[in-house]
């Protein structure tokens, strides 16, 4: 049996939320514990908890202080978080098509240059990765993936861009990500996917869940354009692989 796990830090986020912090850094083991605690609280609801939000290293637990106070909830969470991490049942594995480089990934050449490799090698390395959705946040569907190989770790841009396209696939720091909506970003843009991780009036509205596995597969610009039309009409375009 696993040894007793270290207790997380219970940090106050105001009077109605607790940040349950498992690590100060981006840490795969900590992220697994975040997701495990999230599952535990979903399976064994604690009265007063209204919503949970997994992030890389912590679980944000929203609660109603009329129902339960900070100290009581904190103690319960610490106890639940020290249970051995149960294996995630039925992990979903997605294959997400990406058109790399050119107008769709304007930073590909520059990133390759600064890593002293070729754009083709950069794409091959990015495609080879087996990623996990560590968290979804910032804007709807923005999926942060862990598992980026060390060679591709890069500081973020000095000057964040105000507007980057919907479906952008980018790298920043030790992470890679799938951005759903057009918006600001300080990451390096490698390509685009037609996959909408968030689309209103589609079932499901949100495609990816924290904990899902993701692989990328390169497609050409023509295929991207076709997939983009289909995806706008509610097709999922991403492929669910047999696990």
């Amino acid at each position, binding site marked *: 049996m696993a040894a007793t796990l270290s207790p997380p830090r219970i940090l*106050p*986020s*105001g*009077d109605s939320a607790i940040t349950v912090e498992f690590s100060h850094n981006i840490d795969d083991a900590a992220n697994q514990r975040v997701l495990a605690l999230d599952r535990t609280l979903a399976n064994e609801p604690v009265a007063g908890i209204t919503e949970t939000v997994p992030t890389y*290293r912590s679980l944000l637990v929203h609660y109603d202080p009329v129902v339960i106070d900070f100290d009581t909830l904190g103690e319960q969470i610490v106890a639940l978080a020290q249970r051995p991490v149960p294996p995630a049942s039925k992990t979903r594995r997605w294959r997400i098509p990406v058109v790399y480089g050119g107008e769709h990934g304007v930073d590909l050449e520059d990133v390759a240059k600064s890593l002293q490799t070729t754009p083709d090698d950069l794409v091959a390395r990015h495609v080879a990765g087996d990623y996990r959705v560590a968290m979804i*946040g*910032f804007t*709807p569907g*923005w999926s942060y993936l862990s598992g980026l190989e060390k060679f591709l770790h890069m500081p973020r841009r000095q000057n964040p861009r105000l507007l980057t396209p919907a479906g952008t696939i980018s790298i920043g720091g030790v992470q890679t990500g799938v951005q759903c909506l057009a918006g600001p970003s300080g990451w390096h843009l490698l390509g685009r996917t037609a996959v909408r991780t*968030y689309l209103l009036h589609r079932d499901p509205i949100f495609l990816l869940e924290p904990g899902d596995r993701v692989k990328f597969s390169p497609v050409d610009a023509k295929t991207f354009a076709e997939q983009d039309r289909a995806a706008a009409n509610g097709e999922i375009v991403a492929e669910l692989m047999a696990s």
Partner: protein
Amino acid sequence: MSKLVVSTIGPASSVQDGGRHGAQRYGLTPSGAMDPLALAAANTLAGNTAFAAAIEIGPFGAAFTAREGAVRVALSGTPRSADIAGRAVASDTSMTLSDGETLTLGFARGGAFSYLAIEGGIAGEPMFGSLAVNARAGLGSPYPRPLQAGDELQTQIASGTPERRIELPPIVDGPIRVVWGPQDDEFGEEAKALFLESEWKISATSDRMGYRLEGPVIKHLHGHNIVSDGTVNGSIQVPGNGAPIVLMPDRGTSGGYPKIATSITADLGRFAQTPAGKAFRFKAVSMADAQGEARKFAKLLRSLPDRLRAVENFDLNIEALRDANVAGSAVSAIDARTWQAPSADALAQD
């Protein structure tokens, strides 16, 4: 069905309610009213549930016209001049617009947001149980964007219920109370003391995502990059330039700047109403005190139906006259608030 037509309206005005909860794990922020108590008061006056959808009206003036029948509405929040066909009406009361009549509202006085609730609510298609506008996510109904002149809100024909006023406790003009954390350990004692001892002002580049503060530079102990974690309404994050930003209902669901403190729930609405340029302070309180205040605030919200009073003509006229007189002379700093788009620095993740 009758409808309320937006005749004129300024920026930062949109349909809001109690917010959209349960999808922050997908990056979807709750949105919802900036001042929940004022929303609840307006809705209670209009005979609606406390957090039904209503019109959140920003600092500028607005006018609304009833069409295809009478419409009963109620106004609460920051005071502003209000009249129907030249008759002055008071804040914190309900009122009925006959078919074709127009309610004209002036600038916000001493605050930022007012709420116009409509009896019977606003017809729309809820998403995650809410009509609240979240323009960036394309959410909100009947219009997934701030309101514009010409917009039409469908509602029920006025019931003829006698008008009411609501007695709200006076607003205390004290400091905004906070609890430290979750990342106050990223700041030294000096920075924390400076945060509490300084006068702050809200920058004109504030919006429903966040209020940027003007004051001294709050220095980090170990730099300004932390691994992104979750945010709440009232999180006070300190980016690289040392100028704190208080996160509001349209915030990103996660952020990568250290959060020195968090506004207590009971003070969020009062903080949202702080006019640009007005000096204010923060005060740190214990978790026990903050949660005690949160429970009192929840009790106040529950008590709103018991605070309704019949409107005597005398009351209404005195109130309305007082409002009308003040309206003529007061032009507060809020009028100059510009509501610009936030910069890339504030928006970029991590």
